[in-house]
């Protein structure tokens, strides 16, 4: 750390272009000592790009960075580290088949002795940092064995071990459970007494709770800057999206479905998890046409296995899955798709899209064999392009062109591509897993409206989420899953945060 501590950091006129897109457009941003600056903005607004420039990962096309009033040039992250800047990236930067110590050691140059890797000193440092900040991590665990929340903790510990005194956190909470989020926010506000922090999030209550100042980015430009305490979350949301954001609510008053048969009915489903354990232990759910059932639960209680079993990606041990009179338990994914099941998977990049395929190809991926998109073994490129143009318009997918590789879009826009495909297919039932994770407020509102519109059309929807707000806003009925069993099903209008929270922790009143 050959440099004096950062008392002020300033970005001036930063501009960055990618093919077909102006990701950052003359951005000015400054961060003072011991303060938290929140950076918010729609998906694809350029937040990650800007921070990658600050880390020396991307080179700006124009503009410069000033530290304590002096201009600096960062050619690689090493230059940023030298000034004590560290970043927790939106996508984990952890090597899965290495241990936690090894991952930290990778960046700790002091452990790189000429002929030996000094893991002992790295381990000591990890223990020290994790005790000081109450961030428990097991240094010897392999990263792939850790849950998402634990990996997030490792990322933070790693960044602190590397001596960061200026922390950039790019959506650190988007994969955390509500409890983990609260803990992280508490920790960060404690740490803000000795560090400077740039905090990126789509959740405005977190921004309110943590930050001193807030900057709003829209389409690569700073559109607003101010002190957080002077603005309400809904004000910020409006500034962010350019319009009032109002999350819609389901209206299930007066509906009586007791006589309806389920359109999607799941009976006594048993499914094994990756480790051979019984991840679903006799789950029974009936979803009527035009009904949204919210499945609440702390992640890891069988949600993933349920979604996979419903979509033919995991073979059930026993039980039945019936969609509109057709038995689907144990059928192949392609048969289930053909029978009209829609799926918004949890992991967008590996399950939802083929990242190297273009947006328009991804939009027809599930029905590529059908007459609409191919004839006699040839693709109907015109129809495919027209379809993409229409969906891009309807779902507000922000991309340079529908010919762009889907993997190069921002996270929220990838989610919109999946949603557009699944909804445009006109499914009978839809399984939506964390459909708004990582999305901005505007996109969240949009997706909620879409789900309600499908409900009105008679689609049976299973909504899996950890956001109680989302579940309570959208569900006709809420089912709580705990350790692979449905603990209770309550009408949506009777559900409260408190009652659901207790159930999610496994406390049922019987």
């Amino acid at each position, binding site marked *: 750390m050959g440099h004096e501590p950062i008392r002020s950091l300033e970005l001036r006129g930063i501009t960055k272009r990618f093919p077909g897109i102006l990701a950052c457009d003359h951005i000015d941003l400054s961060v003072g000592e011991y303060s938290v600056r929140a950076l918010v903005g729609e998906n694809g607004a350029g937040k990650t790009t800007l921070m990658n420039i600050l880390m020396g990962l991307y080179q700006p096309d124009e503009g410069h960075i000033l530290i304590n009033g002096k201009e600096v040039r960062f050619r690689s992250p090493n230059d940023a580290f030298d000034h004590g800047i560290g970043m927790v990236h939106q996508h984990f*930067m952890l090597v899965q088949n290495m241990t936690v110590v090894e991952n930290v050691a990778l*960046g700790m140059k002091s452990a790189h002795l000429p002929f030996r890797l000094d893991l002992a000193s790295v381990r000591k440092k990890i223990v020290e940092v994790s005790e000081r900040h109450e961030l428990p991590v097991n240094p010897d665990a392999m990263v792939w064995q850790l849950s998402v929340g634990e990996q997030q903790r490792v990322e933070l510990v790693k960044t602190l071990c590397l001596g960061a005194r200026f922390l950039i956190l790019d959506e650190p909470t988007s994969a955390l459970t509500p409890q983990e989020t609260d803990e992280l926010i508490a920790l960060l506000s404690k740490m803000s007494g000795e560090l400077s922090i740039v905090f990126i999030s789509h959740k405005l209550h977190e921004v309110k709770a943590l930050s001193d100042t807030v900057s709003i980015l829209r389409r690569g430009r700073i559109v607003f800057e101010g002190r957080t305490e002077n603005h309400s979350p809904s004000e910020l949301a409006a500034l962010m999206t350019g319009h009032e954001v109002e999350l819609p609510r389901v209206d299930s008053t007066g509906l009586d479905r007791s006589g309806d048969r389920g359109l999607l009915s799941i009976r006594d489903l048993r499914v094994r998890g990756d480790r051979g354990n019984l991840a679903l232990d006799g789950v029974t759910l009936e979803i009527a046409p035009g009904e949204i059932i919210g499945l609440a639960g702390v992640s890891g209680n069988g949600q993933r296995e349920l979604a996979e079993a419903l979509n033919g990606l995991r073979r059930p041990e026993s039980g039945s899955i019936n969609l509109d009179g057709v038995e689907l338990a144990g059928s192949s994914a392609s048969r289930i798709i053909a029978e009209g099941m829609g799926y918004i998977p949890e992991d967008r990049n590996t399950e939802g899209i083929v990242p190297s395929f273009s947006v328009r190809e991804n939009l027809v991926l599930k029905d590529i064999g059908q007459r609409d998109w191919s004839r006699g073994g040839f693709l109907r490129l015109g129809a495919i392009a027209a379809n993409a143009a229409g969906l891009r318009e309807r779902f507000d997918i922000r991309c340079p062109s529908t010919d762009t590789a889907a993997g190069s879009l921002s996270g929220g826009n990838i989610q919109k591509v999946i949603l557009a495909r699944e909804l445009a297919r006109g499914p009978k039932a839809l399984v939506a897993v964390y459909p708004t994770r990582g999305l901005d407020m505007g996109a969240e509102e949009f997706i909620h409206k879409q789900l309600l519109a499908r409900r009105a059309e008679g689609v049976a929807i299973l909504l899996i989420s950890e956001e109680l707000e989302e579940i309570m806003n959208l569900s006709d009925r809420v089912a709580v899953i705990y350790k692979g069993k449905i603990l209770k099903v309550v009408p949506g209008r009777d559900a409260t945060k408190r009652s659901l929270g207790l159930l999610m922790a496994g406390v049922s009143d019987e």
Partner: protein
Amino acid sequence: MNGGSFVLNILILGVPFSVALLLAGLGETINQRAGVFNLGCEGIMAMGAFVAFLPPYFLAGTSLAGSANLIGLALAMVVGTVLGLLFALVVVTFRAPQGIAGIGLQMLGWGIAGTLFRHYVGGVTGVPGIAPMPIPVLSKIPVLGQVLFNHNPLVYIAFLLVPVFWYILFKTPWGLKVRAVGTYPRAADSLGIRVARVRYQALALGGAMAGLAGAYLSLAQAKMFADDLVAGRGFIAVALVYFGRWHPVGVMLGALLFSLAQALQLSIQVAGIDFPYEFAVMLPYVLVIVVLALVRKARMVGPTELGKPFDREQRV
């Protein structure tokens, strides 16, 4: 010939057979751990075999004849390193598809070695080669001494390199970088590790090892050069890295298994055992395929970004 000496013969033959595969395989392990597979290994081995052969051939009878073998080995490693770096230029800097580039390098090495050989040397000529160096005392142990301690020095060196490569890969900072760069280059990059530089270094080392493997063939195993001397061993070495799950010990076991099968095959022919000769020749290759197909696919061991170029500003 009785059964006991038949087996003993196979062992005595098989161990030195495995050395060329082992040397090239260890180098290729480093390549692949860094995320690059070098199918050009075969071509580098041909060049290594050729240049190593030159000093003993041309210096015979001069005052330098005594150190000709050493000069040959050094030359082979230098040429191997240069070819490794050339490959790095093509696949790391220019991001050419690795499979095609590797096949190109294979044909280049093979072609140059063959052409130069015909032009400057001509017909088949032997060299004295590297003499055996029995280890005092140990080589006198019955059976074991003959199998393990009665070979030329390169055999011992190759097997001693197994723990050395293990140490490099798992206990040194460079090894850590190599593994990170082959599995998740973006993460390594985010920590300030220069992905391209590490891949260049890995390919240079891999090239040197392939060159040495070639030199072993011409100086220690065949004691001559011919343009089909390498005969697919470079490709087998690449396959053995998968077989050995990217671990030096696994690669060693694979090299031994293949070579013992090879020795068995030869012994069957030499002993005149009534067994169709075509099948005998196929045996080692079939064995490798069968074992490759049968070993359990353990997730999370190998370099997951194998074969993919890295570009910091490219998202996909």
